[in-house]
């Protein structure tokens, strides 16, 4: 073939072709930083919500198992009955009931200690109609017969009331379930905000890069090829934002855990642990946070893909 141009003496400075292929859609044309920040914040909020819900559920579960391992029998002072004899009778009946590991009656001094915050010290309990508490510990793995024990007590010691904390445990379960529902609702909102943000950013990117899309069509690119050029950017962006937000959440939970370990043994630390649990999301929590990072990247990629495809459908 004839040479219409002869430029064999090429100048080296302009002659060098790039070693690495430039992205067809320039990353600078995507609203990268702001969208990365949005994805990072949303991932952080999602991770914090998940971690908080998991801590509440774990703490509630701990409380339930702790409380569920024992029941109490209250023996009320009733005129005409000897409370000490009733206490002894209740202990004997409880011990004879199946699934019971240990039965212990609170001493008068311990009973006084229970009411001391309200009534003060130095009480003469004999002067007061104080009920007596009997703590019944359940054998692990056994199935105690509470209805049978309750019936026996009603028949033989009418002043005794068995409390298996069922109502309290039910309320605790309801609270934990409410926390889960609230957490799921917040996660739904976080995902919705992420999808909307990515959709707007993708529309902006498509508008900014419309000349590129047109040229790609002119050289025979299918919509799938064009979409992949945009989706790659948004997947990377989602992963980066998710990693930043998820990483921050992991660091935060790590700090909480370390602080909890530091304050263990102090009165404040013990009270906080009793109230809120161990302040640890555990290995499962960290795995869930990592999965959320992946989820946010996938959501970002899918939301951008959907927007790109819808926009491409309107361009020819």
């Amino acid at each position, binding site marked *: *073939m004839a040479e*219409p141009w002869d*430029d064999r003496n*090429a100048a080296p400075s302009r002659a060098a*072709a790039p070693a690495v292929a430039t992205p*067809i859609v320039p990353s600078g044309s995507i609203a990268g930083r702001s969208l990365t920040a949005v994805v990072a914040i949303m991932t952080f909020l999602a991770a914090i919500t998940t971690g908080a819900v998991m801590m509440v559920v774990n703490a509630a579960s701990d409380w339930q198992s702790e409380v569920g391992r024992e029941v109490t029998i209250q023996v009320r002072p009733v005129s005409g009955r000897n409370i000490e004899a009733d206490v002894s009778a209740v202990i004997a009946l409880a011990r004879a009931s199946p699934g019971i590991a240990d039965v212990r009656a609170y001493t008068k001094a311990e009973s006084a200690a229970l009411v001391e915050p309200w009534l003060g010290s130095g009480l003469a309990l004999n002067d007061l109609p104080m009920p007596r508490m009997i703590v019944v510990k359940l054998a692990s793995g056994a199935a105690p017969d509470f209805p049978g024990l309750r019936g026996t007590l009603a028949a033989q010691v009418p002043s005794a009331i068995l409390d298996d904390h069922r109502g309290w445990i039910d309320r605790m379960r309801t609270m934990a379930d409410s926390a889960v529902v609230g957490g799921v609702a917040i996660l739904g909102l976080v995902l919705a905000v992420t999808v909307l943000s990515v959709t707007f950013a993708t529309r902006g990117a498509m508008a900014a890069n419309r000349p590129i899309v047109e*040229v790609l069509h002119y050289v*025979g690119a299918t919509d799938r090829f064009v979409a992949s050029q945009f989706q790659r950017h948004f997947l990377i962006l989602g992963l980066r934002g998710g990693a930043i937000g998820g990483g921050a959440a992991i660091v935060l939970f790590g700090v909480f855990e370390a602080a909890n370990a530091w304050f263990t043994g102090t009165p404040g630390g013990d009270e906080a642990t009793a109230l809120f649990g161990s302040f640890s999301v555990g290995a499962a929590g960290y795995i869930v946070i990592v999965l959320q990072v992946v989820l946010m990247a996938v959501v970002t990629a899918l939301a951008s893909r959907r927007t790109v495809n819808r926009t491409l459908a309107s361009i020819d």
Partner: protein
Amino acid sequence: MIRFENVGLRYGLGPEVLRDLSFHIDGHSFQFLTGPSGAGKTSLLRMLFLSLPPTRGLISMFDRDTATLTKDDRATLRRRIGIVFQDFRLLDHLTTFENVALPLRVLGKEESGYRAEVVELLQWVGLGECMGALPPVLSGGEKQRAAIARAVIARPQLLLADEPTGNVDPNLGQRLLRLFIELNKTGTAVVIATHDIALMDEYDARRLVLHDGRLHVYD
């Protein structure tokens, strides 16, 4: 290869800008598409490039009725057509090499497989020294040649050029015409839309003349 039968085109509810166009373009042929400004040359080129559907009539390209094509079908057919725009449509963030290689990249080919081919073509059109340069630093003539190279790199069966000499001096215009003639000799059918009579007088070829919305063919 391409056949138009009673094709008409109107924009919206306006009058027909192109009426009763009936002609064919054979493989390996060379033709000028000419007519006064506003005669509809660019509209006809857009129909030839499948980016504008006719409002009536039949267009058959590569034995396919274009009215029945899906979007993916159009993309596939466009790979058999190269187009050179008057305003070049080069991507400013890609180097000259990458702009020219774009059709091959779109086909999913690896750079190692097409690098030598692109370099050879760039040298053939006189851009061997500009492979790493971005379009904003190229001259008008260099941009035009890069656009032509991009249009022919995938060895299309048909090359469409819209006013390829509109922004260059007569000398460069003649050199570009030589380039198109050489491409035609390699087997590519060429349609050059131009109103440059001097350019058309340089080469004896078929002329498609648009006037008052109708096409007159001078073989």
